[in-house]
């Protein structure tokens, strides 16, 4: 039966025919799970190679607005989880997707989100194998929240971890910083700023494969999402017990992102990214890694930004434009736009 409603009502979450129609028409017709069981049933030979490990990850996505230049919540929900698998050295295999939908959400919007999830999953070579939908009353959610979980396989012998970073290792990012954070700020219109900044939202699985092929001893990698590059670096420095020094002049930034930061007094190092990672590789594999990254679209802007040092353990510092040094600390709370 064709969905007649233009918007989601509470009936679509009630467990009856309306819900079944919504799920079949909007979700499973696109994701095409194998069977309508409560669970997906999956087989992977790669998982059974001796020494292989299963990687499992989850992230909730709550972006406002749900559609923005460069992507939508569906694209992020797939990319984010694919990336959390990939940056750990896993090959992403399967995703689950759970939707929490606010009463009144347009069904056409859901269709667009689902289409973009499927497109992104295909691009990444993963399947969305199981899912769930819940509908909550108006004002009990903000349009739609998506939680994706991912399962992948880490091949035998691979063991990337923040703890493995050693002084001298080189830090490479795959492109400009802060686009997603600035794009969302502009798209939200909270501060009434407008700018043509597309989110960097992208799946980084293929990029990681390229890196690992070129730099098999890559130590650790993080996607620099919430909290930005600064947080990713601090996490790594702390886990590895090394210092990290980055070069201010080496940080790739889009002019519009600089503009947003200057207007609102923000630091782009703390802005969120959704398709940007930082990888630490041994010095002797840095060049190869960099070259390999540039062969993949998501790595076109790859550049070395700094290195691990035997400086104060856990501390990230930046050499400023003038050669001065400063700490790049973790963010305190969240970055607030400021006027002074």
């Amino acid at each position, binding site marked *: 039966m064709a969905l007649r409603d233009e918007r989601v009502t509470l009936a679509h979450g009630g467990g009856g025919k309306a819900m079944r129609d919504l799920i079949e028409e909007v979700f499973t017709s696109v994701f095409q799970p194998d069977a309508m069981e409560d669970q997906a049933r999956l087989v992977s030979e790669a998982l059974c190679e001796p020494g292989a490990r299963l990687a499992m990850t989850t992230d909730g996505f709550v972006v406002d607005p749900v559609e923005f230049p460069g992507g939508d919540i569906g694209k992020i929900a797939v990319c984010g989880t694919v990336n959390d698998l990939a940056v750990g050295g896993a090959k992403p295999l399967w995703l689950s997707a759970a939707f929490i939908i606010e009463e009144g959400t347009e069904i056409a919007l859901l269709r667009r989100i689902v289409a973009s999830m499927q497109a992104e999953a295909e691009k990444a070579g993963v399947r969305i194998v199981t899912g769930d939908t819940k509908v909550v009353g108006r004002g009990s959610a903000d349009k739609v929240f998506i939680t994706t979980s991912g399962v992948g396989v880490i091949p035998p012998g691979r063991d990337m971890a923040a703890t493995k970073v050693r002084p001298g290792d080189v830090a490479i990012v795959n492109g400009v910083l802060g686009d997603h954070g600035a794009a969302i700020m502009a798209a939200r219109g*909270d*501060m*009434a*700023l407008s700018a043509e900044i597309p989110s960097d939202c992208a799946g980084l699985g293929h990029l990681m494969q390229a890196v690992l092929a070129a730099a098999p001893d890559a130590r650790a990698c993080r996607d620099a999402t919430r909290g930005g590059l600064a947080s990713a670096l601090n996490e790594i420095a702390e886990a590895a017990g090394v210092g990290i020094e980055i070069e201010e002049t080496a940080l790739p930034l889009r*002019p519009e992102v*600089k*503009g947003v930061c*200057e*207007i*609102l007094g923000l630091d782009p190092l703390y802005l969120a990214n959704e398709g940007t990672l930082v990888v630490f590789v041994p010095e002797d594999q840095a060049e190869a890694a960099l070259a390999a990254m540039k062969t993949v679209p998501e790595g076109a802007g790859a550049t070395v930004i700094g290195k691990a040092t035997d400086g*104060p*353990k*856990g*501390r990230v*510092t930046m*050499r*400023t*434009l*003038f*050669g*001065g*040094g*400063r*700490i790049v*600390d973790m963010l*305190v*709370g969240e970055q*607030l*736009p*400021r*006027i*002074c």
Partner: protein
Amino acid sequence: MKYAEEFRDPKAAKALLARIQDVVTEIGATKDKPVHIMEVCGGHTHAIFRYGLDKLTPEGLEFIHGPGCPVCVLPMSRVDECVELAEQEGVIFCTFGDAMRVPGTRKSLMQAKADGCDIRMVYSPLDALELARRNPDRQVVFFGLGFETTTPSTALSIQQAAREGLENFSVFCNHIVVPPPIKALLDDPHMVLDGFVGPGHVSMVIGIHPYDFIAQDYGKPIVVAGFEPLDLLQSVLMVLEQIRDGRAEVENQYARIVPEHGNPVSLAAIEDVYEMRPSFEWRGLGEIDSSGLRIREKYAAYDAEAKFGIGYGAGARVVKEPEGCACGAVMTGRMKPVQCPQFGLGCTPEMPLGALMVSSEGACAAYYQYGGARAAEPAE
């Protein structure tokens, strides 16, 4: 970024730093007997640490970080009043993001928001005005916070509201002015200052002459400075040159923005809307005469203090700084942030004890976050 990035050229910075070194040497200042320059403005403090200038300037030059951060000098009781206003039925309380995390005695605005108050971060008082237009059944209160730079924006907004006859917009005025605390600092017997870098954006409104007393009455040089690193370095050099030459003048490094006599439109709006309070409380400095503004009687309809009976002087307020807080000593240059026994222990940006740890422009916060003193230490 035109008119900004040109003033960040490393080559010129190097040259300025070399000249600064030369002049410091000429003056004969050393690590043990340094020349003391106060950057009054938090924006300058921020720039110093952001660009690592503290580590590039010679040892014989010491920056004293002044009281010029409106968030840092905001007493806890002001925050309490903000929360009280935000708690009023039907109020939308608008504030710059800066004030969100400042602790009050009960809670911060961030916490009040979590507790259910309708608090909105805005970029401009104009955004609050727009909220008032769109929510005729709500009372929109804007937290007017800041020095002379920011004061015209709320004055112009109040004038605009009056023109439109908006009945649901008001400003909780906590604007303060820069010269009186400088005077207070200069009168402090403990203070040893050799010169000032003046806040450029304040002067773009009020001009440079309100600082004449510094040169004339106290014999100290002052250079009104821009905020790009080259502006700052050049201004420091100009101050040092005055010191070396035995001059005490008010100079304007930031002439591209700062007209000698300020901005007449801004000054007229301030004059129209605001009047001086007899005295006002500054966190870390106490009550200072004629240092804060209030809304004139004729704009009482836009005065949140009048409208809600909440605000400065409305009730008995316990003005007590937290125990062990050394902010006063830091602000008068008697102590470095790291010398405060609370620094990094009882007082961190996550849980600030004193005023100067509150905002990223506060000297202690800047030291802590950008590593004024921590950079060289091993990590804890």
